[in-house]
């Protein structure tokens, strides 16, 4: 197959998922080894811990054309680094609230706690989130027009 055959047809939403290395990324791996489907437009970025996710990264993703951003980490209390996700939880709560305040669709951002054993939950969450973003359609409010091709 030729690569240039692979071209974007109609609009498919793009979802960036920040996953902590210890729980959620492993949960995504388990979803994979259990062959649980979720949309290909979900792209995972591995971070050591949910507390590594800088609000900058989330804004950057929207700027460059993401339509939804989800952050996944260990369940509160189960953080590999003991307390990382507690900080992440506060940061994301406030950031998402701020985006909502600025009139950005609140459903475009989400936090889910997915353990290494929850492959099924990971797939279910991604399917559901992708559906939500599909319904919302393209992100226009937080996109940088220069990044449009």
């Amino acid at each position, binding site marked *: 197959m030729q690569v240039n055959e692979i071209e974007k047809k109609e609009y498919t939403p793009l979802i960036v998922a920040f996953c902590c290395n210890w729980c959620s990324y492993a949960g995504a791996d388990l979803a994979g080894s259990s062959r649980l489907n979720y949309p290909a437009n979900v792209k995972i970025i591995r971070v050591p811990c949910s507390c590594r996710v800088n609000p900058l990264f989330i804004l950057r993703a929207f700027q460059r054309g993401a339509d939804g951003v989800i952050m996944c980490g260990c369940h509160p209390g189960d953080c590999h680094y003991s307390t990382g996700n507690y900080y992440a939880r506060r940061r994301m709560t*406030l950031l998402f609230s*701020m985006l909502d305040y600025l009139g950005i669709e609140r459903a475009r951002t989400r936090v889910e706690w997915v353990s290494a054993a929850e492959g099924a939950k990971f797939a279910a969450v991604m399917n559901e989130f992708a559906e939500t973003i599909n319904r919302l359609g393209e992100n226009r409010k937080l996109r940088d027009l220069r990044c449009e091709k």
Partner: protein
Amino acid sequence: MREIKELLVQKINELLDNGTVDRVAGWKAGEFCYDAAPAVFTKENIDELLYNGFCGANQSKFLVNAATTENRILALLKPCDTYSYNQLVKEHRVDPSRVYALGIPCTGMVDVNKIKALGITGITGIEEDGENLKIATIYGDASCKKCDVLLERCMVCKGKNHVAGDEMLIPDEEAPETPSCADRMAEVARLEAMTEEERFNFWREQLSKCIRCNACRNACPACTCRTCVFDNAKSGLAAKVNNTDFEENMFHIIRAFHVAGRCTDCGECSRVCPQNIPLHLLNRKFIKDINEFYGEFQAGADTTTKGPLTSFTKEDCEPSIVMERGE
């Protein structure tokens, strides 16, 4: 105010003469009397010191660079300035051993734009007269109701008590009462009650006015980074101008986030904004959320408590609370 000014001059001279301090951080008139701006004085030019209803500028930030010498500098701190001062001490940005913090009373600072909006121009002086202000202009005297022309910060005054200071000019109990004539969160709540689309349009209209002059950043006592991320080429964020709508949003979201949990709500950002963008509403949104989600918190109330973003409880609400709040 006049008596206070006299007391103040007397105290400053005493401190300069007995060698407690060798400089004074205060306010100096600009081209116009209402242009009062922070300035550092020595024994030589101390008579230029101004303290009147236009001295709204928050002194504390300037101590970051001014309080670096062996000799102490005298800082004149209004009650609300002490919150910013505490926050800076907490973050080791100001060394309190190099400052002599003198708490001075305040009965509310005025917003000259609000006076001008009443049609009063050519202002040459201002004096308090109970609930009213007597304003001297080149066209003669005028007057207006004080609470109509107060700075946003003073409308929701934190009170007459100082939370820091080596000495008080007059004890807080004996200080005149401060004004407080508005609900701090009313405007935030009004925006929250809007539809998503209305909010988006509101902020687009406001933020699109931004000319990226960086005045908000330069005046903000919480923005004291040695090198701001927006000036640091390596940060991936550096930009001198807002090229797109996104960058307008981005600059203000990140700025508000960087001061979240540290902002004392001093309102300098809005006061100095030449485009009159209500930037304090961004900070107040964070403050309102923090108070609602994690319990009442006032940044700068002391110099030890960890901020809401550098602490947590295991029972904190989940981010989904944002989704669950009614539209």
